[in-house]
């Protein structure tokens, strides 16, 4: 791999994770929360891609990192779909999507 150093990518990934966790801990709006989770998750996906590229061309290594990243993107999409379904249900039931108010699992 040429160009930017590995540490830069990893730093970006760490920053993304920090932003994601910060968002998870502070957002009360369910949609914003989902976005924060998405950001945190993307930091992990980024790591896969970065290491996949880093080892690219070294004998014995393939494109496992990039492949996993694609799977994870799919996973993140399904997760968001489920999350949004919950948001809709919550909105219908409570008229609010504030997660701090949804403290019980059963109504």
């Amino acid at each position: 791999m040429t160009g930017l150093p590995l540490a830069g990518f990893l730093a970006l990934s760490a920053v993304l994770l920090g932003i994601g966790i910060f968002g998870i801990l502070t957002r009360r709006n369910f949609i914003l929360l989902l976005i924060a989770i998405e950001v945190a998750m993307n930091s992990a996906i980024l790591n896969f891609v970065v290491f996949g590229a880093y080892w690219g061309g070294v004998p014995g290594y393939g494109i496992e990192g990039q492949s996993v990243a694609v799977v994870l993107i799919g996973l993140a999409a399904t997760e968001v779909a489920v999350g949004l379904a919950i948001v809709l249900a919550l909105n219908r039931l409570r008229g609010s999507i504030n997660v701090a108010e949804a403290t019980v699992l059963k109504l």
Partner: protein
Amino acid sequence: MSGPLNALFPWAFLVPLAPAIAFVIVGLFGRRMRRLEWGGWVAVGGAFVAMVLGVLIAVGEMLSPGTYTDRSFNWFTLPGNGTGTFPNGFSLVMGTLVDPLSAIMLIVVTVVGFLVMLYSVDYMHRDTGLPRYYAELSLFLASMLGLVLADNLLQFFLFWELVGVCSYFLIGFYYQRPAAASAAKEAFLVTRVGDVLFLGGIYIYFQQFATAGPGLGWAAAGFPFVFHGAPFLTLLHPPNPTLFTLAGLLILGGAAGKSAQFPLDVWLPDAMEGPTTVSALIHAATMVAAGVYLLAVTSVFIGFSATDSFAIVAIGGFTTFWAASMAMVNRDIKRVIAYSTVSQLGYMVLAIGAGFTMVGLYHLFTHAFFKALLFLAAGAVIHAVDTQDLFKMGGLRKTLRITSIGFLIGGLSLAGIPPLAGFFSKDDVLSSVYTAAQTHPMYWPFFVLAFATVFMTAYYIFRVWFLTFSGDRPRDPTLPPAHEAPWTMTVPILILSGLAILAGALVFVPQIGGLFTAGVGFPATPGVPPTYTTTDILLSVVSVGLGAGGILTAYVLWGNGRVFSLAEDSAAQPIRRLLLERYYVKTAVDWFGLRVVYAVSRFLDFVDEYIIDGTVHGFERLFSELSIRLRRLQSGVVLDYAAYVVVGLAVFLVFLYVIVPAIPALGGG
């Protein structure tokens, strides 16, 4: 040998069974009978059957002396490995043993038991709880008869305990009265001390004597007193002498508890809280006789070591004097007689310890009759005047003619005036101890005590007689006018009067005297019937003189309505107070109970409450407080959980990358 009545011996188990059946009938159906006295007649019937059968068996034993066992009922067997060590392969057999000892006791227990039952019917008619009374009295009698016929120590112990629990019920018959309830408890607890010792003694005998030799078949037979015609004693392989002595002392402890010997004598005078009939039964036939009988059975079948014998003599001799001294000052008619029983039991124990077992039983035999007589006569007095205080009575011989004569005969017999029953047996005891003391100088002090007691005995019993019956009128004018008791009460008094006169001389009949030679195949037990050498006659003259002196002293001090009162500044006052306070033994026991036992109990209660319970409750509180606090973490807010995850992750990372590398043991450093 077989006599005409031997066919009855296998049926000996019916003797205790008859009152036991009466117990079941009265106990179950007594309350539903149209008149409650009917239960009394059922009990009388049970006692009557027991008496007829018991006396017939005793007569059969007289006609063909010997030892007859029936061991057909094997209750249970413990599995064994064939080594014969107790309790390996041990069987508990419930058998009956008819031998001279049990024949004597059968006569005493059934006759006195029947007469007391008969007397109860009218004596108790004013009381409530009659079915309970008759049921318990029948069970009492049945247990004592079972004990008398027991053929091994464990069976003996079972009935012994039944006797104990019945005495508890009956002493506490008036359980509404706190004094009666506490007297019952006291009797139960004090005799329980003896019972534990007794059980220890049984264990030592079993454990010691089963291990080798003929014991192999013997544990399996349940340690009968008599095995293949030979007594326990001859079957023993040589026991460890220390343990043998210890077992004897433990047996003595059991007997002392039951027979109210020093220092376990406190319960008997207090047991006077029960109905007088119960006192008569306890004192004459059932309860206290069991202890003496235990000593007799042990000495005949097993034997005592020299140390045991001395201990028995010492306790018996001392108790004789100790109890008689307290009887001299008491003002309760029943308590005086109760102390008298303790004292007379001392004579029996003394004789057994001195090696004259059958002399002890002889005294038990005569004592049962005159003591029952004294109690029944005292009961008639109490029935008539409704008080037990001697100083309120007086002049009752005019209205209670039969009772006063009965009491007089009992008193003369107790005082040892010839030719009444008590004279022969008490004299026999004294001359036996005299004989024993020739070879055992250590017995002399106890012989002297026993001899001095003769005077005291005559004095205290005639003090009672003069205070109750002589004089012109009762000292307390508010006493209700006395009336003679109905026939059911006077007939037993008359029969017992006859027995109190004759029972002593009966042993000169060869057949009856034969009972007192302890059967065939056993070590000879001399002493009954009494022989009269010059020394014996001399002893008799002195003891009769002492008895007469005691009666005379009582007459001078208390006769014809006189009331002797000790001057306030008399030197004898402290002694009188000491005796009235029962040598402060009761006070000491109470003090011990209140101070020591109660303090220990309170300490243990503290340990229980604060240390044991405290620990348990402490854990309980710890976890409940903890959960109350930790519950707040479960807020239900997703964001909080997210925070825990993050914090948990951070802690984990810190652990993994900071702490682990710093500690070599964990693979770092």
